[in-house]
């Protein structure tokens, strides 16, 4: 049977705007993926722990409050510290272009800003997955 892609959709920090995260989660489910939604108000520790326990292929982080430069890299850091270095980390929300480059350096492979079609997000994940080593597990 086809290997299902597992995605963690997470809301780090105090930001309570979950419309985007929920729309993306639903869209990824409709694209055939298994999506674990963390709910709101997650600390980076909670997110990293969930990513480990669920053995997800992708971690999607959503922040609209401007706290992304602190919280996104922290999640990546924690994942690495737990020995997880082969998952795809992507982000979304209100993130200015200038920060996108910094985030990439910190391990966030791609940022999907406002207006990103969910089909694009799903396709990106699929393409990444096909060529990643996780596909063989």
């Amino acid at each position, binding site marked *: *049977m*086809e*290997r*299902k892609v597992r995605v963690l959709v997470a809301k780090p920090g105090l930001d309570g705007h979950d419309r985007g995260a929920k729309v993306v*989660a*639903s869209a*990824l*489910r*409709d*694209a*055939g*993926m*298994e*999506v*674990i*939604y*963390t*709910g709101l108000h997650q600390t980076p*520790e*909670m997110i990293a*722990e*969930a990513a*480990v*326990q*669920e*053995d997800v292929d992708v971690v999607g982080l959503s922040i609209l409050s401007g706290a992304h430069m602190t919280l996104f890299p922290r999640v990546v850091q924690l994942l690495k510290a*737990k*020995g*997880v270095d*082969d998952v795809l980390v992507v982000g979304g929300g209100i993130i200015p272009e200038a920060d996108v480059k910094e985030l990439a350096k910190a391990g966030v492979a791609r940022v999907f800003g406002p207006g990103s079609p969910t089909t694009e997000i799903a396709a990106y994940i699929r393409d990444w997955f096909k060529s990643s*080593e996780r596909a*063989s*597990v």
Partner: protein
Amino acid sequence: MPVEIEGLLKRFWEGDRVALSRIISLVENGHPSSLFVLDTLYQHTGKALRVGVTGPPGAGKSTLVDHLACQMRANAHKVGIVAVDPTSPFSGGALLGDRVRMTSVNLDEGVFIRSMASRGSPGGVAWKTLEVCEVLDAFGVDRIIVETVGVGQGELEIAEEAHSTVVVLVPESGDSVQAMKAGLMEIGDIFVINKSDREGADVAKRMLDSALELKPVKNGWRPPVLSTVALEGKGVEELHRKIEEHLKLLVTSGNIEHRRRECIKAKIVDILKNRIIEFAWEHNKLNRLIDAEVVSVTAGSSTPYKSAESLLREIGQ
């Protein structure tokens, strides 16, 4: 980096949760190495007791499981939680939203929460879930809570794999009736009316109580009906006590051993069934033979029953 099974197993035995998680995935995905892994782990299983928690959507199962896990932790038990949600029949994907509510224990080192999608085959899920439980068992977990949405046949099967099954209902009109229809009455060892601060809770409890009175007592256990308000943690201590009581009874009465034997038998039969068909498919090119038989039957020169007999004879050779 290709999956290095030996290395993974080594880390697993060292208590590495990443390794545990990855092995669960191998098993869940039916990776070629999973049979080897399950085989290796098997002798280390048998300690963990499984508690099934099932009921209609919105009953508050996840919140209840969260509190229950806390109770188990207070008993110094290591806990594994497997939360099963249905896969969408249209897209093949799933939204797994149970762990969201398990906020008390999601950072507890002694708790491991894993969300699973039913992946389309209700019958198959039961086995997969059981295999994931075996992995957790081998890892050293004492109690495994398996949470499912109890509305379908498949879910009932999963529930049957649990040693102790808790059925969670809410007071809304018709819920208890639905439960009876869905066959949940048969499998429940403990019944819970959650959100019991709502209107109709007393009525629902009475209805359940009277329905259960008609049920024959199984192995000396009369299923109780408890009331909880999961959001406030009310009644959870009592629920935990009852679960432990039931588990103890199963152990002392030898029922656990009996079930383990039944389970082993069923497992062997299941593996055999699958392997035999696989083998026949491969070896005898069963597919093509069946196609030929279909032609005969539609042409009127055979019937499905005669065809099957003839194929059996073929395979037998």
